[in-house]
């Protein structure tokens, strides 16, 4: 990032100060709910609902977490989310990079049309055709199986688009040199194409990981009545909406339990984000700037 002359700050003034105070307020607004959630998870239920509120857990407890581990199969949920998301993302990366490579470096009739269709499809979310898609997948007998979660999410136009932008950056001369050497296209793709687009693949992997993990509506429809088949976010929504029936009895008005479940759900993605933070920034900018 470029800095102004020797770090001297420019454009300071009342307006600038006011704006930066607003920025800080928005940062607090966006993170405070999470702070409230995480600290709430370590409070007793009676302390969570206390007015005036405890801004910090004065009586620290782990009972909420013990309770969710014994009441709900949360580890199964986490494992489901992990398996589904990892397989989906792996397939997205493979299929998208193959298609992107063909679109960027090969010549064939219908290339331009296909590219335009993919760009158009970028804006069509799964929610819009969720009913026929659900009926279709249900008829195939895939509801509740991992493939039901995975298959409809693999063909991701965003993935092809993002990686095509990365392949476009690789000069065609490298390709031509490879042809003279008698290196076939398929071999060239595996030996040189894939490694050259590594930053793009990293960005796509991280962005689609979050998107698939958080794909609530589809996961909700794929979950069966067996609580073990839930993913974490479907499980969380069920815990939150549970009323006093069956095993959910204890969840009724048990705020501690709900705070702990929400915390348990939030943490995996938060960790992934903080570890790979740099790639998110790069990926989002790369996928968008050429709009």
């Amino acid at each position: 990032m470029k800095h102004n002359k020797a770090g001297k700050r420019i454009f300071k003034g009342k307006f600038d100060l006011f704006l930066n105070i607003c920025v800080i307020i928005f940062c607090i607004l966006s993170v405070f709910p999470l702070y409230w959630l995480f600290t709430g998870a370590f409070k007793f239920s009676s302390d969570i609902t206390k007015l005036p509120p405890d801004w910090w857990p004065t009586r620290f407890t782990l009972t909420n977490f013990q309770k969710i581990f014994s009441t709900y199969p949360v580890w199964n949920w986490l494992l489901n989310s992990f398996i589904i998301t990892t397989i989906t993302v792996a397939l997205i990366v493979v299929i998208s990079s193959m298609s992107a490579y063909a679109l960027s470096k090969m010549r064939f009739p219908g290339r331009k049309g296909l590219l335009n269709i993919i760009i158009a499809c970028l804006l069509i979310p799964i929610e819009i055709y969720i009913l026929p898609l659900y009926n279709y997948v249900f008829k195939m007998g895939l509801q509740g199986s991992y493939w039901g979660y995975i298959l409809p999410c693999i063909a991701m136009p965003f993935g092809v688009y993002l990686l095509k932008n990365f392949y476009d950056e690789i000069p065609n001369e490298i390709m031509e040199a490879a042809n003279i050497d008698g290196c076939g296209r398929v071999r060239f793709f595996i030996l040189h194409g894939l490694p050259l687009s590594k930053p793009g693949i990293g960005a796509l992997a991280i962005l689609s990981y979050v998107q698939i993990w958080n794909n609530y509506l589809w996961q909700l429809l794929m979950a069966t009545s067996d609580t073990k088949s839930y993913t974490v976010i479907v499980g969380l929504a069920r815990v939150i909406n549970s009323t006093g029936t069956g095993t959910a009895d204890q969840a009724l008005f048990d705020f501690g339990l709900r705070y702990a479940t929400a915390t348990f759900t939030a943490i995996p993605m938060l960790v992934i984000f903080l570890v790979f933070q740099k790639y998110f920034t790069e990926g989002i900018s790369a996928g968008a700037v050429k709009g």
Partner: protein
Amino acid sequence: MNNHKKRRITESLQAYAFLAPFIILGCMFMVYPIGKQFIQSFYNTKWGGKVVFVGLANYAEIFTNEIYIKAILNTLLFVIIAVPCIIILGLLIAGSIFDKNKHYVSTVRILLYIPTIVSMVVMSTIWRFMLNSQSGLVAYFAQIFHWKSADLLSSSTSAKIIIIIVLIIVNLGQCVLLYIAQMIGIDHNLIDACEVDGGNRWDLFRYILIPLSKPTTILVFITNTSLVLKVYIVIQLLTSGGPNYATTTMMYQLYQDAFVNFDTGVASAMGVLLFAMTLVLISARFLFTSKEERQ
């Protein structure tokens, strides 16, 4: 020459082979359902599973039933208010920090992006806790400041405002991120010139940042409109469309009809309407990109 032609044919065949998995899966799980939905929107499933052709009756139902009209108007209202707010706030936030200390910039970026990462389900859940009329934080503030009502989700106006605020907070991060990436790339001579001329930050905004960020603004506008059009999770977890359908949206009604009331015909027609709105966005996108290429 013949050899050349042969090579081109193999190249095309190879390209199709590379594209085959994507195209096949895309047709199976995207193109086919979209087409199927269009056909289904002209049929209705009666009790007992008999499918009857009803022509445009499903669409007529949507445009005459008060609940569906509310759903459409609410969706449009959320788009019309939330999207410009996201754009203006994103522009102001990015524009007031992009030239500051590197660590400050990346901290703000991370903090604002966190709500997007932890999923709408978690964020909506927490907001629901905080808005709980008996024990939430908002009830506490209501007590302190002597507000009339602590239950903000029970009045239709305040419920709408809450939904819009949550939508803004959840979607702001990505917008800021895009603007910062774009503003860092602006030619520094321009910014220096503005400084030499004695401009303040408002001049910087007016003459440099806002005009030069136009492509990003268009992109942010289009992506956020598409995000707000399909808003569902926030509604389900915060208000369930209430009070008295004041916050119901097209997507929420679609889900209710499809999976709760099993009214496939109307749900499909609603899906087609959402698809049509998305098509408008898509053509807007193509219009802007082709305009830029010509310039």
